[in-house]
């Protein structure tokens, strides 16, 4: 035997399959079957989210050490699916990867199918479908401890024999059975086949499809009843008892509202300290660079472009992390499915699906993860409708704009004598966003995206105590995605915006040099160019510059206005910007900013789609430029009209 071959079978004497190069292993299974827990237990922190270019795939890839002497295997975590006959985008992605039909994902040497031991029959539906395709398969039997506790005595050897593939019981949290799983995977590695089966039930007549499906279930039932001593069924379990309160006719909606209020309260109050901390650090960094570097274009680029731009966006990291913390806690505990169950009727009234609730809720932090979460919605038209209204949820990037306007023109004022007017205004923005989303969704579902009322078949997973390790992993992943974005796209946009405001250079030594510079820059010229169009909204050209720059990201308007008003970075930024805004005068001597102008601006920011990241994600998720272009245009028209009505209507009623 040659040396090459000998080295290739190290640690794997029973199989001739070369493992030296490192295996590729896919992990698949039903949603809620414990796939993520197993993935995290196998890979630890050695995982990252991989984006495959050109396709709508985002899947987690980790490294799994099968044996110490072998290179780590590449473990691919696929979205959950119930059947190879996919009904949602998530399922299609998983199916195509499993059948070797997705060129962007490497075909697996072994597919680990996660099967929930407490829910064998339904989980085996997918497993048997996959076994029939002839792929190399190992079944990981999760929740084995829970099954034992509820007196389901599973004869693993018998089950394995009947299915014709190895079955390994595991308890991911306690790391039980993981070594066994690794050994079994090594023994069963071989190249997978590329299947031309699109879906097992396709092409057949409805009656044939039904009978095929019933036959499969009959086979599974026989296998399971042979291998398992079933415990008594039908007793209400703990989840059902919890549901008596959580999805109670009256208590349920109250609990839902309280949970949402708590989440938002936490996001806004807990995040403020780390946010101002990040802000302080970056302001300090900018000052440090300014004082220690020679003045010039490069220093300006570094301080005004890079540090200010990236820092301004990073300040939102605490809020985004907190929101993801709550979302993953709610998701892992099983509550999210109950929320969808509770609100489905309301969502259906506007033509959306109960499952649209989670994406829309996420969009209050940031529309990007919200839009990605729409992949679980089966009907493509429902999914697009949800994507198109998600940006109306007031995201965290709008808050700085609201806060600035309120600080400048509404601070200290009371509504009805007791409540702060600022709080009322912010609440009004949130509510208005929701109402607009409802109206637009209704219109879309009755015109462009007309489709019969979507069906609703959803599993209500048992309540489980969220696993802090899993939640930590999810946060870590989100955090790194966000940081990567801040380091690439947002960095590039910041530099571009800075350049637009910094060129062409105006040589001036006057005290208002920066202001003059902006006035003559490309951005300033653009602001003047659009001034006639935005004048009816109450905006002058300086606000116009802010609007243009904020089309990349909303919060940019603050740094732009600071530059335009020549506030400078040295003093406390916001207070001086507020003063500058209060003192700004039009050529005729009247103030530029009035409370009405501020309100008009807030409404414009609520309704316009000023976010490059959102546009990019919509492009990726819908796989065309059609929807992102449509979204940006209709939202812009809506924002313009609403601001126009606010400003002109307000003036008509004598406000200023």
């Amino acid at each position: 035997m040659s040396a090459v071959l000998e080295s290739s079978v190290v640690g794997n004497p029973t199989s001739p399959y070369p493992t030296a190069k490192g295996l590729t292993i896919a992990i698949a299974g039903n949603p809620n079957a414990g796939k993520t827990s197993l993935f995290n237990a196998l890979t630890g922190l050695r995982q990252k989210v991989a984006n495959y270019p050109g396709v709508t795939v985002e899947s987690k890839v980790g490294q799994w050490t099968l044996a110490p002497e072998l290179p780590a295997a590449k473990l691919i975590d696929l979205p959950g699916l119930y059947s190879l006959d996919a009904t949602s985008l998530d399922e299609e992605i998983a199916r195509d990867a499993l059948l070797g039909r997705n060129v962007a994902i490497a075909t697996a040497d072994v597919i680990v199918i996660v099967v929930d031991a407490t829910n064998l029959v339904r989980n085996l539906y997918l497993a048997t479908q996959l076994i029939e395709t002839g792929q190399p398969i190992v079944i990981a039997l999760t929740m084995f401890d829970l099954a034992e506790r509820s007196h389901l005595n599973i004869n693993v050897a018998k089950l394995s024999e009947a299915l014709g593939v190895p079955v390994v019981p595991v308890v991911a949290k306690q790391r039980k059975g993981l070594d066994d799983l690794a050994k079994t995977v090594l023994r069963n590695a071989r190249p997978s086949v590329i299947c031309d089966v699109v879906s097992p039930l396709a092409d057949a007549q409805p009656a044939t499809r039904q009978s095929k499906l019933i036959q499969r279930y009959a086979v599974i039932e026989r296998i399971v009843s042979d291998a398992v001593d079933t415990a008594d069924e039908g007793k209400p379990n703990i989840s059902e008892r919890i549901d008596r309160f959580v999805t109670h006719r009256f208590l349920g909606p109250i609990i839902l509202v309280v949970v949402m209020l708590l989440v938002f309260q936490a996001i806004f109050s807990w995040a403020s300290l780390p946010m101002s901390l990040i802000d302080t650090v970056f302001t300090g960094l900018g000052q440090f660079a300014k004082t220690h570097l020679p003045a010039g274009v490069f220093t300006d680029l570094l301080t005004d472009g890079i540090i200010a731009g990236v820092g301004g966006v990073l300040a939102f990291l605490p809020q985004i992390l907190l929101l993801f913390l709550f979302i993953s806690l709610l998701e892992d505990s099983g509550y999210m499915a109950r929320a969808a169950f509770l609100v489905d009727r309301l969502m259906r009234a506007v033509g959306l699906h109960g499952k649209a609730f989670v994406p829309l809720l996420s969009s209050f932090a940031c529309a990007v993860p919200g839009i990605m979460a729409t992949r679980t919605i089966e009907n493509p038209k429902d999914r697009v409708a949800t994507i198109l209204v998600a940006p109306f949820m007031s995201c965290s990037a709008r808050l700085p704009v609201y806060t600035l306007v309120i600080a400048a023109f509404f601070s200290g004022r009371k509504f009805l004598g007791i409540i702060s007017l600022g709080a009322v205004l912010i609440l009004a923005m949130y509510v208005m966003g929701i109402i607009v989303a409802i109206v637009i969704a209704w219109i879309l579902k009755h015109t462009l995206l007309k489709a019969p009322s979507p069906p609703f078949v959803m599993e209500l997973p048992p309540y489980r105590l969220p696993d802090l390790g899993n939640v930590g992993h999810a946060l870590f992943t989100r955090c790194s995605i966000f940081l990567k974005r801040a380091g690439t796209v947002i960095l590039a946009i910041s530099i571009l915006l800075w350049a637009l405001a910094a060129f062409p250079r105006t040589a001036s030594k006057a005290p208002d040099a920066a202001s003059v510079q902006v006035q003559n820059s490309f951005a300033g010229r653009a602001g003047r160019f659009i001034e006639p169009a935005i004048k009816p909204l109450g905006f002058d050209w300086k606000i116009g510059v802010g609007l243009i720059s904020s089309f990349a990201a909303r919060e940019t308007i603050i740094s732009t206005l600071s530059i335009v008003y020549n506030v400078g970075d040295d003093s406390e930024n916001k207070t001086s910007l507020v003063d500058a805004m209060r003192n700004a005068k039009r050529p005729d001597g009247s103030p530029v900013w009035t409370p009405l102008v501020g309100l008009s601006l807030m409404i414009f920011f609520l309704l316009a789609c000023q976010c490059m990241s959102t546009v990019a994600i919509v492009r990726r998720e819908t796989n065309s430029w059609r929807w992102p272009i449509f979204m940006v245009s209709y939202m812009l028209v809506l924002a313009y009209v609403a601001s126009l009505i606010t400003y002109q209507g307000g003036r008509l009623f004598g406000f200023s």
Partner: protein
Amino acid sequence: MTLDMIPKDVTARVAAVESTEGQGLRLMEMGVVPGARVRVVKSAPLGDLIQVCIRNYHLALRRAEAKSVTVVLE
């Protein structure tokens, strides 16, 4: 009798599932096949969805979909 008609906490057996469109198929893929035992757990507030227990897990479906499932009381 169809699944949307049986009262809360009553166990029935699935007799047939009508599936002219894809959705009946999904219900069956989720385990709602003839012979399976099913129990209605509750209906959602505002009453459009029902929650059933089948094959040891819980499933939410609309009344319209439940109508396509013929059941026999045990």
